[in-house]
């Protein structure tokens, strides 16, 4: 049975004194991650026993749901694959509807180390930002992350474009290692981009005048599964994302009105 937040708050949380008073949830999108998801849930609990863990199973064909539920996570099981955007938004809707104050987003493949969540949470807990994003490419994180050259170039290029648009330096627009307060949760529950969401979402955050801070993190090698972005899809990714950003700038009604969908 999933641990409820009420009995879990008995544990002492060392991360931040304010964290204990807040209802907090970890959103973990997962697609065919049965080998890593259990460890991710365990690590999240180890970081903060009072953290409710919600795994969004994006139509996995393996035992991802079972593995997550066995570890006491709540599992939102999508009937078919929606893609990362739709999956993550399911988690934000859950967080919004269940009145959570704080949400963190951690990938189910083990790429994000929950031990670094304290750093990611810091700007949100101190009220400095509505959304904090763990970045692999800030000046402080020179080391660590290894990926193909084309992918790095793509990430840099997108970061440059986004930085110009939003008027604030953003170094890692593709990171899904995030922490959000209630405002951030509400925005993403209402409207979240599909397919490859993080870049567009970053622009959206600024258009809604929410405050975003980047925090240096290191990411691990993927524990299992495959990246949702293969080499061949990179071009489609770039074109689609740039189109979405530039056309999105001309949208007057940034958020669709409630009920209009």
């Amino acid at each position, binding site marked *: 049975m999933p641990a409820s937040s009420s009995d879990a708050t008995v544990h002492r949380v060392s991360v931040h004194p304010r964290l204990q008073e807040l209802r907090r949830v970890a959103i973990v999108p997962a697609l065919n991650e049965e080998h890593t998801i259990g460890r991710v849930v365990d690590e999240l609990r180890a970081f903060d026993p009072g953290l409710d863990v919600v795994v969004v199973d994006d139509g996995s064909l393996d035992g991802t749901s079972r593995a997550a539920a066995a570890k006491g996570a*709540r599992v939102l099981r*999508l009937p078919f694959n*929606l893609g990362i955007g*739709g999956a993550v938004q*399911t988690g934000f809707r*859950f967080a919004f*509807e269940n009145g959570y104050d704080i949400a963190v987003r951690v990938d189910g493949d083990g790429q994000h180390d929950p031990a670094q969540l304290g750093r990611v949470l810091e700007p949100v807990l101190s009220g400095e930002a509505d959304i904090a994003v763990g970045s692999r490419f800030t000046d402080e994180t020179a080391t660590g992350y290894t990926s193909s050259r084309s992918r790095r170039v793509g990430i840099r290029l997108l970061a440059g474009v986004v930085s110009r648009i939003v008027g604030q330096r953003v170094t890692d627009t593709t990171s899904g290692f995030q922490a959000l307060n209630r405002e951030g949760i509400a925005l993403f529950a209402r409207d979240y981009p599909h397919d490859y969401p993080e870049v567009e979402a970053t622009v959206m955050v600024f258009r809604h005048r929410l405050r975003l801070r980047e925090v240096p993190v290191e990411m691990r090698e993927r524990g299992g599964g495959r990246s949702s972005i293969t080499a061949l899809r990179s071009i489609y990714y770039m074109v689609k994302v740039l189109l979405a950003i530039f056309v999105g700038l001309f949208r007057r009604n940034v958020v669709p009105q409630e009920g209009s969908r």
Partner: protein
Amino acid sequence: MTPLAVSIAGAVASFVLVLVVLELIRSRRLRERYALLWLVTGIALTVLSAWRDGLNTIAGWLGIRSYPPAVLFAVGLLFVLAVLLHYSTVISRLSDQNIVLAQRLALLEEQLLR
């Protein structure tokens, strides 16, 4: 001038399109909403095929001297493009709604099985 055979064939084919669309609406296999563009296409092509002077005049405006029925192709193609574009918007809306349904289902199912 448009050959008479072309006018007759064009008019008959376009009229058959109109009849087929009407029949599909009657038998509830096509919703009025999606039939409208097809009906307009059929009617426009029927009129242009049957009204030979009109076709020639329009061709003249467009600078088409050698073969006026080319206007029929152009108009037909334009409408087909419009129909396809309309379908793309319909598909986009359906897939958006589909996503919301899947999300709601996952949220409700979790509540139910908890």
